[in-house]
Structure formats: C-alpha cells, structure tokens
C-alpha cells in the first residue's frame, strides 16, 4: 500500500492538478455568468445587476432575471452537454475526431427544427420546435442503432452515423431549396447557425431536463469508457456490456444534444474541442475527462455568447460563427503545443 502511493506519486500529482483545474474552471464559469448578466443591449451597471437580486422590482431586475439569466443558464447547459457528449464519443469510438455530429445527432435534431420552421409550426407553441428537434434526434438514433446493431467495432457506428448525418443535412438543404418564402428561409438559415438571443426560462425548462437526463446516461458509462482504453475485446473481457454502453451513449447524446440544438440551433465545434482542451488537465483516463470537458464546454459557449453581444452591429453574431472562428485558431495553437496524448 505504502509503496503503491510512493510509486504513483506522478499520478497523485496529476489528481491534485485535476482538482485545482476544476476549481479554476468553476471560478471562470462563475465570472462568465456574472459577465453574461452584465452585458447586453441595455446598459446595466454592476450596481444594477446586484440590485436585480434585491426584493424590490425594477426594469433592470426584469432584464437581468428574465432575459439575461436564462440566457446565461442555457449557455452553461448547452456547452456542458456538448462538451460531455464529445468526451464520451471520443472515448467510445476511440477516435479523437469524434463529436456529436458524427452520430448524426446534431443534423437530425436540426432537421426536426427546420421542418417545424418550414411548415410554420413554430407559431403554434414555443414547445413545437424543441419537440420536433428532440424527435428528429431520437428517430435518427433508432435508425442508427438498427443499422449498427450487427456491427462490432466503432467503424460501423461512425459510418452509420455519418450516413444519417448526410441524409439529414440533405433534408435541411431540401427545405431551403424548396422554400418559396424568403423570410422562412432566412429564419431557417439563422436558426441553423446557433443563437441564444431572446431565450426565456421556457427554454431553460426544455434544456434543463434534456441536459440532466442526457448527462446522466452519458456519465453512467465512465468506467466502461476506461475499460475501452484496451479496445472492445479487452473491455468485454473485463465484464463491460458493450451493447448497453453504446445504447446509453447514443440515447444520452440524442436526448442531450437534441435538446440543446432544439433551444439554440446548431453550435458546432464545442463537442470536438472541449475534450481536447480538458484532457491535458486530467490523468488521461476517459472517465476523468468527462466532467472537465463539460466544464470546458460550458466555458466556451458562455464566453462565445458574451462575445456575440459585445460585437456591435444590426444583427447579433451567431454562436456557431463565433465558436468556429475563435475555436479553430485556438484549437490549432493548442494542438501544436500539446503534441502528445493521442
């Protein structure tokens, strides 16, 4: 026992570093949430934000609590589930390129949303678009599990996922292609680029349960993902039920990412980069990368959502645009610096 501790001092240092990193990330998130309440079209100073949490009513209070707070919460939820999904998928498929869109979850959810927009169903209720998006993701997932049912390795899942993703993408293009109404077309295009503008607590009530359910399903797999470091055969020889692991992962991603896309539209890249940014602060075990990836995802989307409000212009910048434009250079710089780990 004693010698075990001595000899693993390197890994012990790592776990201390992991705790420090988590604390730092939580502090960054707290700071970002505060900034998010501070920033927006109306100028509300520091005092205004603090006053919003006092009992007496004011316009500032409504703006901060009804408009900016849900937005800040949504950024956290969506970023977290995207980061977590990416980490789970990379471990499950043992592929550092994996992200939620690989399984077709993002595109199918987007297609569900686009159909709602195309037929003008969104006017019926604020819940139509999210339900259609989650429905699209779930439907895609069922097809995916059917297609990949008989295959063993990760490639079957990837190929089936990419096929579904492509078909859903073509469906979106078809909707744009056939749309006679330029306004509907614009609405679709903008929605696809991702945004948290004008979201309310109604949206939080949609994204919160999907995020929680999705995250629970995904996190359940932690240990199995560690075993997958040894490959599928190795994991199975350690008693891992791979079919159940896959089903939980796919279901968790469909519900979690489906809910996220339903509320915000597609936000690309976060699922891919969050695990890579988080991994060096962990001991490398896939189960230990999950939560730091969720925190990193939350930081990325929160920061991007603050940025879109700071850039002046008639139209608020879209989140997908910001995450890609800022994410890619950052990601590349990071990759070249951290040239190890995979």
């Amino acid at each position, binding site marked *: *026992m004693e*010698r*075990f501790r001595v*000899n*693993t*001092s*390197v*890994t012990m240092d*790592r776990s201390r570093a992991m705790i420090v990193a988590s604390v730092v990330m939580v502090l960054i998130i707290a700071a970002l949430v505060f900034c998010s309440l501070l920033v927006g079209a109306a100028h509300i100073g520091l005092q205004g934000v603090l006053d919003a949490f006092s009992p007496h009513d004011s316009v500032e209070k409504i703006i901060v609590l009804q408009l900016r707070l849900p937005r800040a919460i949504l950024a956290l939820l969506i970023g977290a589930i995207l980061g977590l999904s990416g980490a789970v998928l990379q*471990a499950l498929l*043992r592929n550092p390129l994996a992200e939620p869109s690989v399984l077709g979850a993002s595109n199918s959810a987007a297609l569900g949303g686009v159909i709602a927009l195309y037929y003008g169903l969104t006017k019926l209720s604020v819940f139509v678009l999210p339900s259609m998006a989650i429905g699209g993701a779930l439907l895609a997932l069922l097809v995916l599990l059917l297609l990949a049912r008989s295959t063993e390795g990760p490639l079957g899942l990837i190929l089936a996922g990419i096929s579904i993703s492509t078909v859903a993408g073509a469906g979106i293009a078809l909707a744009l292609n056939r749309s006679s109404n330029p306004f509907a077309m614009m609405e679709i295009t903008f929605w696809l680029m991702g945004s948290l503008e004008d979201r309310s607590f109604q949206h939080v009530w949609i994204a919160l349960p999907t995020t929680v359910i999705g995250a629970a399903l995904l996190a359940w797999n932690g*240990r199995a993902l*560690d*075993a*997958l*470091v*040894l*490959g599928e*055969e*190795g994991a*199975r*020889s*350690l*008693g*891992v*039920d791979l079919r159940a692991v896959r089903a939980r992962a796919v279901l968790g991603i469909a519900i979690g990412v489906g809910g996220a896309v339903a509320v915000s539209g597609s936000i690309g890249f976060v699922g891919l980069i969050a695990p890579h940014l988080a991994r060096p602060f962990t*001991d*490398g*075990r*896939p189960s230990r990368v999950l939560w730091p990836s969720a925190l990193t995802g939350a930081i990325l989307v929160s920061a991007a959502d603050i940025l879109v409000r700071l850039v002046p212009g008639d139209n608020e910048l879209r989140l997908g645009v910001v995450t890609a434009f800022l994410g890619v250079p950052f990601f590349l710089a990071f990759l070249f610096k951290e040239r*190890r*780990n*995979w």
Partner: protein
Amino acid sequence: MSTLTVHNAGIDLGKRHVIADVSLQARGGEMVGVIGANGVGKSTLLRAMAGLIPCRHGSVMLGDTSIAIMSPTARARAVAYLPQGQSFHWSISVAHAVGLGRLPHLGPLSRLSPQDETAINSAMERAEVRDLAGRYVTELSGGERSRVLLARALAVDAPVLLADEPTAALDLYHQLHTMEILRALTGDGKLVVAVFHDLSLAARFCDRLLLLHEGTLIADGPPQQILNSDLLERAYGIEVLQSAIEGQTVVLPRKRKPTNGTTTP
C-alpha cells in the same frame, strides 16, 4: 479449484466455420499450451473459452456453469483474458492501466479497496513494472507495454487466465520471465491456457499441449507426446529437427514440406 470444459464446441466467425467439434477439459493448477499453425483457430478457441464469442454448438463450462449464461462481471472475475497484440487507445498511467484489471471487482460507484490495491501492487511486482507505475503507457517500449498488459491481466486475480501469444514481441529474457510468471500462477492452483509459437519454450513450461489443425484438436497430451515429427509435419507442414538438450525437448524447423503445385528449393 476451477475446471474449464469445452464440450463439442463448433465456433463460427462470420460465415466461416473456424472450430469444429473441439472437446477438452483443463483443471486449476495446470498450464496448457495451445499450438498450431496460423489461422487454425487458436485465438478463436481462446476467445470462446473466455466467453467473448458464442459457440454455434456445444458449450464452454466453468465448473458446472455454462459461460454463456454467466453475467458479464461474474465471467470477467472468473476468467482473465489477455488478447493478442493488445494496445492502448489513450495515454493513461501504467498504474491506472494495471488497475483496469480490477474493474470486474468494483461495485457501482465504489473506489479501489485496499484489497484491490494489493492485487494491483502484486501484479505490478510480478510483471516487474512497478518502476514504470507513474509513466504513461504511450511512452513505453513494446516489451514494457507487453509486461504492463500482462500485469493488467494478472491484476484480475481470476482462477483462470487465458493468454493469446503472451510471449510475442518479447526478448529472450522477458519470454522466460513471462513463462515463469504464468507457471507460478499454476502453483497457486490457477489454470493457465496460453497460445504459443515457440514449441521448445512451450514444451518446457507446459504440463500439456493442445495441437490444433484446421479447426480441430488433433492432439492433446504431455509435450513429449505431442512434439513428434509426424504430428508437427501434419500440423505445420514442415519437417522438424528435434533433440533433447539436458533433458529439455528442443524443436527447430528444418524445411517446409512441398505443398501442392509449389516446390521448395
């Protein structure tokens, strides 16, 4: 003491019948070598014995229980399996890699118990990877990686260890070392079944050899009995040089037998 029984097993990979009607029984305390040419179904047989692939007909029994109806964790606790040429897909520390062997013993959400840590330590000690504990698996040499993987399998502390070519890619020193580790397990009453290509080494350390040819078991018995020229000629398609040096059987390939339509110089 555990008994592993393969009863009339037929095993398919895809549509191909790889193993046909193999029966064998092995008991705790035995070291059994599986030998045979490439592609005759040695690995397939081992995977079926580990419960990783189903039998088309027949069964694999562990004691009185069919391995097919055991829960995945119960099976994993009972049978440790070391696949051929395994690699690591992510970079984790050696201590964590060896610790993976304890997964079948962990309850949901529980942490490593002192007992688990003892098993991990003992496995690292036996495979001589303790000094590597803090290193990352991607920084290891091929031989070091093999030993870490062996330690991972030892950490399971299962009554049965199935190892697929555990000495492949190891230098002579570590081949011997691996054989000694496996042999020592049998002293604790464990059953070791392993695939080998080095017949002389297998003959020295195994109590019994199983010779597979075209998916069937053509010989099963003590090494001296199996390593006769006729059987090896049939199984490997070669002529062998055979001798006993200091009482140890040594087998060397002499030349290939001409196959249909081709001649060897």
